[in-house]
């Protein structure tokens, strides 16, 4: 099986083909051209013809390059020494450290049996009211940040990672700018988190096939830790680069594109990665936070669209803020009833009022007279953005909820907010409330925080 094949029949894109026998699907080969050695993976078998995807790209490959089949699938080390290290997408060190070849494990392992999953129940506190109050992050959740280019998504990702209480942080970077890679490394180092982190980094200048491997490598290591009882947070940025790499390969392989050039199995490809997020019964967990940049700021673009159907919600990052509309944590219902009884109603009502505020803004911009209710909404909207939405706000959940009641009481009468009466009786700030009866003068301004 270790026979060396010399005659390369076809070179097209990153795919080469040779004739060989008894080759197993999805296994690896080494392609040697002069001094250059690259890994390649079998992606199609057709009689004797074997198609290989060359990780380092096909540039410089000659028709008499040597192909040696290794007879094993792609693997990654699960050594204890992996912590603090940085690798490329194909698993070679990107830092100065040694090659790690011990305790190799397969990547792209089978799916978790749904019968062995448990319902997640731990909230991950981030200190951001827009997340903690309105869309709580839950351990074992998979959640992307939908963002336009230029938004501080990597900063947000790093901030959540540093504040979250987890054992291991895994970072998978795809198509990263070199600056971003340095940013992540430095942030981890500064906060002393490097020793519990592993990074798999593909930068924009690296071969595109390596980009495809990053999520699988990252998640295989994460899974190994989780099965052994660790709580792992996986950060994947940017998944749109991953999808573009998929597109590139699919088109090279002459697959019929389904939507804007992306292959028909985009959904399944993304799902098999995101679904690695799990809470194991009696062991650890994997939480996945990813970034999906939206080309043209369009959420109906195939990448964010397919992602949204897979993940358990999404955060929209627009204008340096987490947008309350569209942002959604599907798992919040599992945790936000255990925090405080007013958590859910505050969440729903503040958002509803903020939606009304946005409508009023629209009306105002069209030049309509603002009535009494509009004035209240305008005041509320301003306070809401300042106290809740600003990314610089860093307060815990309970403070944020109190802040919410305060804001409501400063702007509205208790009957106007649509909250159940018993909650109003319990939480409505006494000193900040307006007069009981509906007189026209608003006197909520006397309240300062």
């Amino acid at each position, binding site marked *: 099986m270790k026979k060396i094949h010399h005659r390369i029949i076809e070179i097209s894109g990153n795919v080469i083909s040779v004739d060989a026998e008894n080759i197993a699907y999805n296994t690896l080969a080494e392609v040697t051209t002069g001094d250059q050695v690259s890994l390649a993976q079998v992606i199609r078998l057709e009689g004797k013809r074997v198609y290989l995807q060359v990780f380092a790209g096909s540039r410089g490959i000659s028709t008499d390059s040597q192909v040696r089949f290794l007879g094993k699938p792609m693997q990654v080390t699960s050594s204890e020494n992996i912590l603090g290290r940085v690798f490329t997408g194909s698993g070679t060190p990107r830092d100065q450290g040694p090659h790690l070849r011990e305790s190799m494990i397969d990547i792209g392992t089978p799916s978790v049996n749904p019968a062995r999953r448990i319902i997640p129940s731990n909230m991950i506190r981030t200190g951001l009211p827009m997340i903690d109050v309105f869309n709580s992050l839950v351990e074992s959740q998979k959640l992307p940040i939908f963002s336009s280019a230029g938004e501080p998504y990597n900063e947000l990702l790093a901030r959540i990672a540093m504040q979250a209480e987890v054992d291991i942080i895994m970072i998978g970077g795809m198509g990263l700018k070199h600056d971003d890679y340095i940013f992540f490394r430095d942030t981890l180092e500064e906060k002393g988190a490097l020793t519990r982190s592993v990074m798999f980094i593909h930068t924009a200048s690296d071969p595109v096939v390596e980009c495809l491997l990053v999520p699988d490598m990252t998640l295989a290591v994460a899974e190994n830790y989780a099965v052994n009882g660790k709580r792992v947070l996986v950060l994947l940025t940017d998944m749109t680069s991953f999808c573009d790499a998929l597109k590139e390969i699919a088109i090279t392989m002459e697959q019929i594109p389904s939507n804007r050039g992306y292959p028909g199995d985009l959904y399944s490809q993304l799902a098999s990665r995101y*679904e690695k997020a799990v809470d194991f019964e009696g062991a650890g967990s994997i939480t996945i936070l990813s970034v999906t940049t939206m080309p043209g700021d369009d959420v109906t673009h195939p990448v964010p669209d397919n992602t949204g159907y897979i993940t358990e919600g999404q955060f929209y990052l627009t204008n340096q803020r987490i947008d309350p509309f569209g942002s959604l944590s599907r798992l919040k219902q599992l945790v936000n009833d255990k925090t405080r009884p007013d958590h859910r109603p505050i969440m729903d009502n503040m958002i509803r009022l903020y939606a009304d505020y946005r*409508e009023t803004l629209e009306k105002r911009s069209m030049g309509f007279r603002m009535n009494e209710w509009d004035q209240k909404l305008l005041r509320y909207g301003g306070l809401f953005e300042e106290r809740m939405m600003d990314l610089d706000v860093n307060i815990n959940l309970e403070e944020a909820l109190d802040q919410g009641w305060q804001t409501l009481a400063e702007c509205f009468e208790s009957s106007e907010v649509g909250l159940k009466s018993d909650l109003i009786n319990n939480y409505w700030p006494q000193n900040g409330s307006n007069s009981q009866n509906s007189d026209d003068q608003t006197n909520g301004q006397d309240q300062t925080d």
Partner: protein
Amino acid sequence: MAEEQKTGTVSGVNGNMITVVFDTQVVQNEVAYVLTGDMRLKSEVIRVRDRVADLQVYEQSGGIRVGDKVEFTDELLSVQLGPGLLTKVYDGLQNPLAELAEESGFFLQRGLYFPPLDMETKWEFTPTAEVGAELRAGETLGTVPEGIFEHRIMLPFGWSGKWRVTEIAEKKEFSLKEHVATVEQNGEQRQVFMVQSWPVRVPISNYSKKMLPSETLVTQQRIVDTFFPVAKGGTFCTPGPFGAGKTVLQHALSQFSQVDVVVVAACGERAGEVVEILREYPELEDPRTGRSLMDRTIIICNTSSMPVAAREASIYTSVTLAEYYRQMGLNVLLLADSTSRWAQALREMSGRLEEIPGEEAFPAYLESLIAGFYERAGLVRLYDGSTGSVTIGGAVSPAGGNFEEPVTQATLKVVGGFLGLSRDRANARRFPAIDPLESWSKYPPIVERKKVRQASDILRRGNEINQMMKVVGEEGTPISDFVVHLKGELLDSVYLQQNTFDKVDGATSAERQQYCFEKIIQILHQEFQFENKDQARRFFNQLRQLLIDWNYEEFESDNFQQSEEKINQMLNGQES
């Protein structure tokens, strides 16, 4: 059959499609096993060309080599039907997931298959047919108790003609391995077991006739039952963009619908959603029977990271199980989440087969497959005169939330109800986010149709006035119009919206809906006098508050009546 094993040899691998050179003959859609390493990977013949068959492998295909041996089974992809299906959790190929977990732990191991039903469990068989009786396929020989139901043991659905019972067991416990009757036709004797197998892609049609669905299936969701009802034996779809609450709605339907059996097909969706059902249903009580909800539920779960070919099969597996329970005179609700993932599985395979693609690269036969699936729903009269029904509700996940795409359009052609979920409503936290202006249903509601029309009318006019106000402003709107707008909003927030997660508000019985809808209609009809718009708004805000409180009170409790009294006072106060 076993005397000569049909075999073949792998000649190519492309993703989960393999090409196999076969030695003797093959049957389209028959099951085959690829022998690779020490594994046997299940696959299905999907195309034959000359001496070469294309097979879809129901597993990841890594490790398969050219030259690997393939064994053909001569059997179409089938499911096992018999007592013990209820409460089970299966993958798309009817492998019991709990048993798999015991064997292989956290992960789904490739090539590991388990019998779907426990062959050792004893079931108490009570004969209902007598020796000498002439039976057709699908007619009952006896029953066994399964949970709250009398599970009918029927003459296997595929046996044609009349069969005479020559021997039938007495009331006694049997396992599925033992036969309970012997029947005869033209000298041929066959034994009948309590379990039979049926090919999933073929509808079970052992009934005397299919009837028009006319009775409302009460789902206890106000917007559904009152405005866009579903009928027993009908079909409906719930398309919506992500985040619009499709799955929450499906869960509410599976939990609160008043039917006998619920089959949940989690097809290519998130595993976490199934886990919620898995872990919660055993704890939840079905108010109709007082037993656990799980006792009436079967879950077919082929989530998004599980093999794609099995996802395609899972839809058929689930509808076959639903049809099986319909044969027992039961009302079955099949909820498929999501049919778009199933269509995508078809698309992936079609692409590998290099078929000429249709719109958005979906195969050209997509429409007929979707129609064929929904047509398996229906209200039927069985041979013994009783009726049973399969109601199918399919979630659709249109790309970009755009209903113009092929799967939604093909689905809309064949369903009787369209519950379209809207992103705008979801963003405004108006749940369930079923769009009251876009949705439609052809089935009868639980209240008077005329009144529904009146309510919808106000909703529509309210919406128009709202649009108008955005242009001309509130000051340019007459107060009478403004009140219509407020009435529409009121109807929306206290009746159409419903808090699924609340114990009381989550499920509204038919009686309660009829009662409360009367009150709403009364408010919608009432003439109000207001000095100005602020006063009107204040009044409706307060009224809304009272009605919301009312919704959260147990029906016909003291608090319920007190709440109602407050509402009446407020309404009367206005009138004078």
